Structures are given as C-alpha cells and as structure tokens.
C-alpha cells in the first residue's frame, strides 16, 4: 500500500506540473475548433474545459447558498432556552472524530483522482469506494448526533437556534449524501465502461471538486458552530 501512496504522490506532483497541458475534450462538439487542421489547439477560449469551468461556477454559487444559511445560524445561535443549548448538547470529541473522517475522505478522493490519471482503474474504484464509505460514516455520525440532540430535547421547532442549526447542518448533510451518490454512480459507470476512457479523469475530478468543496464547507461549519463559543 505504501508504494501505491508514494507513486500517487509523485504522480500528483507531475499532474500539477503538467496541468497547463491537461486539456480535456469538452462535452459537445458545437462550436468546437478541435476539428480544425491544427487538431491539438485548445478547444476552448480559456483553455479550461467547459465542464470544469461550469463546476467552478456552480461551486461559487454554492458559497452564497451556505453563506446565507451560516448567516442565519450566526444570527440565531444564542436564541434558545436555558437548558437546551450548545453548552448542554455539543459533544466536541465525537464531532471532531466525525470531522476527521470527512477530512480524510478528501485525501482518499485525491488518491482516486490520481489513480484515474494513471489510468489505474482498480485503484480508482477502490479509492472512490473508500471515499464514499468515509462520507457515509460521517453521515451516520450526523444522524446519530441529530437523534441524540432530539432525545435531549432539541426538536426542529424547539427554538430559533434549533431550526437554524438543523437547517444548516442538514443542508450540508444533504450535500454529502448527493456527493456519495455521485461517487457511487461514477464508480459504477467506470466499472461498467459507460464513461469513455478519455473522459474518466475529468469526470472523477469533477466529483472530486464537489467533494472537496463540501469538506471545506464543513470546516467552516465545524469552526463556527461547534468550536467558537457563542
């Protein structure tokens, strides 16, 4: 396994170095200059593939979605009853552990992207499954946490704090769930050869971009919601 990791790291370095040449063919041929006599010319005006640009734009938009939800939480985080607030509910060691699980899933996601760039289908599938499992473990932790909080008296309609907390972390959880579905679906499509070999690196990379974004959002949520005292 350590060989795989070493190989992966050196590969990742190469990938970053070669990134300028790393242009993938985009979705549709309309308006595509890839067919002209120069053939190898950049198919897009920016030299960045359409799919990747679209994913970045979408993630930019998502920033404001979470921005709105986080603002709502920050506004309402002190508005709860005396006995059911963060001080009584938070179990920082537990949530730290589940946060660690989610962050590790970003590492395994990077390994999957690296493997697919090496055209190593076996490890691509392996690391995607591990990523999905870690994501699933995080979600299980969140469900456990929600159940515990509910038992301790924090219903969704209990207080402003409760509504804002469940909505913010719930939205994040839904994003993780969607990411898991994307991982498993992409993995199944790769396994069944439904994605052309030449498009696989980009497809996995797109899932990776989304996955890392969801992780970064969790870092912000974990810091603002759990670590900084109200």
């Amino acid at each position, binding site marked *: 396994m350590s060989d795989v990791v070493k190989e992966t790291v050196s590969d990742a370095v190469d990938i970053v170095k070669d990134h300028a040449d790393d242009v993938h063919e985009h979705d549709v041929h309309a308006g595509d200059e890839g067919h002209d006599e120069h053939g190898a010319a950049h198919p897009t*005006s920016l030299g960045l593939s359409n799919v990747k640009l679209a994913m970045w734009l979408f993630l930019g938009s998502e920033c404001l979605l979470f921005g709105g939800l986080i603002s709502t939480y920050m506004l309402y985080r002190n*508005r709860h009853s005396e006995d059911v607030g963060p001080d009584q509910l938070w179990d920082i060691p537990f949530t730290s552990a589940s946060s660690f699980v989610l962050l590790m899933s970003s590492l395994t996601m990077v390994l999957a992207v690296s493997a697919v760039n090496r055209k190593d289908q076996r490890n691509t599938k392996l690391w995607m499954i591990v990523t999905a499992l870690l994501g699933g473990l995080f979600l299980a932790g969140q469900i456990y946490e929600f159940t515990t909080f509910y038992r301790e008296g924090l219903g969704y309609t209990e207080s402003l704090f409760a509504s804002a907390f469940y909505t913010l972390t719930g939205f994040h959880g839904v994003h993780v769930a969607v990411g898991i579905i994307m991982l498993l679906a992409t993995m199944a499509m790769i396994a069944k050869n439904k994605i052309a070999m030449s498009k696989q690196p980009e497809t996995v990379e797109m899932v990776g971009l989304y996955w890392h974004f969801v992780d970064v959002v969790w870092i912000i949520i974990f810091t603002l919601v759990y670590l900084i005292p109200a």
Partner: protein
Amino acid sequence: MAIIERPATETLAPAETDTGDVVTATSSYGYLKRPVESTGWRSWVFTVDHKKIGIMYGVVAMFFFVVGGLEAVLIRLQLAQPDGTVLSADKYNQMFTMHATTMVFLFVMPMAAAFANYMIPLQIGARDVAFPRMNALSLWLFVGGGIFLNSSWFLGGAADGGWFMYAPNSDVPFSPTNGVDFWALGLQITGIASLVGAVNLIVTVLNMRAPGMSLMKMPIFSWMALVTQFLLLFAMPVITVALFLLMFQRSFDATFFTVEEGADPLLWQHLFWIFGHPEVYIIVLPSFGILSEVLPVFSKKPLFGYPFVVFSGAAIGFVGWGVWAHHMFASGLGPVSVAVFSVATMAIAVPTGVKIINWTLTMWGGKLRFTTAMLFGIGLVVQFTIGGLSGVTHSVAPSDTQQTDTYYIVAHFHYVLFGGAVLGLFAGLYYWWPKVFGKCLNETWGKWNFWLMIIGMNLTFGPQHIIGLQGQPRRMYVWTEARAGEGFFNLGFWNLVSTIGTFILAVGVLLFLINALVIHRRQPAAPLDPWDARSLEWLTTSPPKPHNFDRTPTVHALDEVFHRKYEDIGEGDDHEYVKRATLEELVEEEERNADAHIHLPAPSYWPLILAIAIPVMAYGIIYTTWLIAIGAAIAILALFGWALEPADAEDSDFDPPASGDETSKELVNV
C-alpha cells in the same frame, strides 16, 4: 434535426484502447430511443438548439407579459374611482403580488434569457451554447415554474404578500391559503432555471468565442448578458435560502420568522434584498446591452466609449451588491447603516450616468434613422433617465422615509423597469426580428405601437409621482374621496389619468401582438442586412441555419461585420469608410468555404422529463407526500438517463439518407 457529418466509413476508433475495452456508453442509455425529428412539435419540445429554445423562451415570456398586464389593468380599474369595487381586498392583494411576480420572474427575466440564448452564440461565433441539454432544462423549468406559480389562482388563491413577501407577514397566521407556498416553491423552480442558465451562458461566453474574439472585441449585448449571468449566479442562491426558510416555516413549523420566539423580522428583508437589489440590475442590464447594439446601428457610428460601457456595466454588477439596504431605510437599521447605504446608492448612479452619456454621445452627430427599434431605444434613454433621477431622490434617506410605501416608489420603479427594461426588450424585438424570422415587423404598426406605449406609460406612471407625494400608499385596495385633496393635486383626477394611461399602454402592447402574429405574416422577406448592422450575428442567413455559421468566423475587430463590409480609406485619424462588400456577398463567401465537419448536439427527452418531475415534487410538498416520491423517482430516472446518454447522436440513431449519399450532411426525418 441536427445536421451532422456522417462519417463515410467507420473510422471512429476509440481514442484510448489501453485496456482493450470498447466503450459502450452510446449503445444503451435507457429505454428511450433518442428523438431525432427535425419538423413538427417534437422538433421543438425535445430540441437543444439554442435558437429554438430562445424563441420558446420569448413566446412563453410574452404570454406571461399579457397575463401580468391583465392583472395590472384590474389593479388600475380598482383604483380608478374612490372606494373601488372591482376587486375585494383579498383579491387585490393577490393581484398586485402576482402582477409583480409575473412581470419580474416570468416576463422580463425570461425575455432577457430569450435574447441571451438566441443571440450570445451568434454574437460570439459559436454553434450552440456550452451545455445544450442544460439549456433545454432551463427553459422547461421556467415554463414549469410559471405554470405551477399561476396554478395557485385555481387552487385556493394566489400569494398575497407583495412581491418581496416580507416574513413574518407571509407566515401562515397572516396568509393562511396555499398561495405563499405556491409562490415560494414556484420561484424556487424558476430559480433553478436561472441558475442553470447562468452557469451555461457564462461558460459559453468565456469558453466558446470564435478565434480572434477577445473579450474586448465582443459585442456589447453579450457583455451585458455576461454581467447579468454573473449576478444571477450569485444572487439566486441567496433567494433560494430565503425561500427554503419560508417553506420550512410554513410547511414544517420552523421558527425562523416566529417573532414570539425572538425571531428577527429583518432576517427575511436582508436575505430578500441581497438578492433583490442585484435582481433589478439583472432585469435592466440586458436591455442596456440591447440598447447599446441598437443605437450605433441606427446612428451609423460605433458605440461611443465601448470600454466605458463595458466597465460601467461591470461596475454596476459589483456595486449592485452593496446597496440592498436602501430598500430598508424605514425599518430602523440605525444611522451608520443608513448613511453607508445612502452614499453607496448615490455612487451606483455614477456608472449608470456614464452609460447615459455614452448613449447620448453615440447618437451625437450620427446619421440617425428613426426606425421603431431606434425609437424604443431613444425612449429607453429618456424614460430611464427620469426613473434614475427619482431613484436618486430615494437614496437620500430622509426623503426616502417620506416616500417609502407610497405610489412615488411605484412610479419610480415602473419608470426604470418599464421605461428601462421593457422598452429595451421591445427595441430588441424590432431590431432582431428579421434576424430570427427572416421578415421585418411592420414599421407603421411598430411606430403606433411605440407612441401608444410611450404615451400610455407616461400617463400611467407619471401621475403616480404626484399621487405618491400626496401620500397615497401603495398596496391599499381603496382610496377615499374624503382625503383626496383639492385642485391640481386631487388624487381622484390623477388616479383616473393613470387608469386611462394603462388602457392606452395596453392598446400599444396589443398592436405589437397584432403586428407580430398577424401583420407579420404578410410582410415581404427581409433583406439579409435590413439595418446595415455591425455585429457578428448578422454574418449568416436569416433565420440562421441550425449550425449558425457555415464556417467558424475569425474575428479581427469590434464590430466585425461592419469592418468586413466597409473599408477605411481615410488617413491617420481621419476615418472615411467606403462599402466594399454587401452582407449577401459576405455570407455567400462563408457558404463557399463551409466547414466540412460540423457536429451538433442532438435532441434529448431527459431535460423535459426532469423539468416535469420538479413541479410534481413541489405539488407533493403542498399536498401529499407520495407525490414527492413519484416526482423524485422521475427526477432520479431522468438524471441517470441524462448522464448515460451521450451528448451527440450516434449514426445508428438515424435512418440512412434517402439519396444513399453517404457523405450527405442532410439527415432525414425519422
């Protein structure tokens, strides 16, 4: 529908053969054979062609314009006389809420999207947008959202909280019907449409420009549409959050807006206006772009200060994010906030003023031709300036406190929205009609259309300044004779004038509809270059071929088509242009040098199926849970069908050409 190169022999070996696996993605993508019709209704509803999608956007938006206009007529009939009895208080609330919602979300935004969809690929020299199927999804989500929203009229009453739907006023105790639920979910659906469209069009503009077209050689409409799409990209998620909070509040008893629990009524206002203020620029910037195309053509001069128009547009896009609280001056924000937002609001008038100066100087010294499109353009400059000036009076907070919630506000935003956005859209309709349909609209009818609309709008909205400053509140379903005042400022007189103006305006719009639907049929075919146009969308046939350009154009200059038609024989800074080619000759030349390999994206069922699934889920949220499950199941099916379907049609999707000519580019209908 698509014209696709048919490879003479099967030489399309998979690019990667390392594993020895043949990729089978194309052979099974679900249970549906791909639609390939090029005629009939199927060629429209399953299309991914940006031109057809643009036309459908325009038709549906125009329909909602008529709906919203009828709602406006009812509002004005109610207020024509003291103690009006046309509408009940409840119906009146629904009427003004839906009038605004319809006009903003279902007319102006999609109409601008119609122009952006149709014109952006043509203006930047592309064959389609970056993600054609997502484009179709945008269209059908907008249609689905619009129908969903308006179905509330027949299902217990429409939303009644005003278009900004302040919570907690829109919470269940104050608005017990399902109207607000329909409103929140309907806007959520059209919001997805806008977001998908924004991602798609930004990628298109940034990534699919023809060779040589740098951003600063790009036609100005594409620029303004690009800024608009960025505003949409970042503004839609904020209203999405607000709408989710409202939905959770109403449907799941969340407490976000429950004041007894200590909720802050300003939360909704902030979230809404952080979206809402960029929204007003989303509404007006496309029209600014259209105007900046129309004025140079009919002044026979290049746009004065092109970079200034571009950068002032971008500046509006940025500063537009820092002025939202000027909608909330009366809510007690505190002196510092009020002062900051007041100054920022005055500042945003500057880039707008820059544009007005550019437009004026574009016309200055030009050979003006007063076609209908030009008249609408000049109308925009004049009317928008009036609206802009009354807007500056709002930026002065003490003055605004007097004006808040009066008809003066109504007067202001109709001058900027109708006088700015709508007149610009009509200028675009008259200007680009021959490009889209190959026939000009009738100019005589067009001029009647213009003058009736201009007179009508000034009679309708002009008096509302007076009504408002006299203190008549907006959103009140009656006014009383006892407080109407005396003499020149009598509310009764000006309310009546305003209502009469509405009917003149309505006749003006009716003339447009007759012109477009009836008179247009009898018009002769338009020449290829009816206006002596300047930008790249004219370098093709009218209407354009499915693949837009026979040869991907190479761009050398801003106003590419003008520079291909005219040669500069002046010396030094002395420019003298003589015509060296007609557009007919240029297009013929393009046809002679047509590209051999043209791949077009193929139609698909999945965008439509996905767009139907989402309103089904929305009905489920309001009525029963199992409908959510059905909708979600269809949506998941559609998502996977979409993901597994290749973007391009395969050879095997088509019947062989009847002629037996294997290299024929024309595909038969199936």
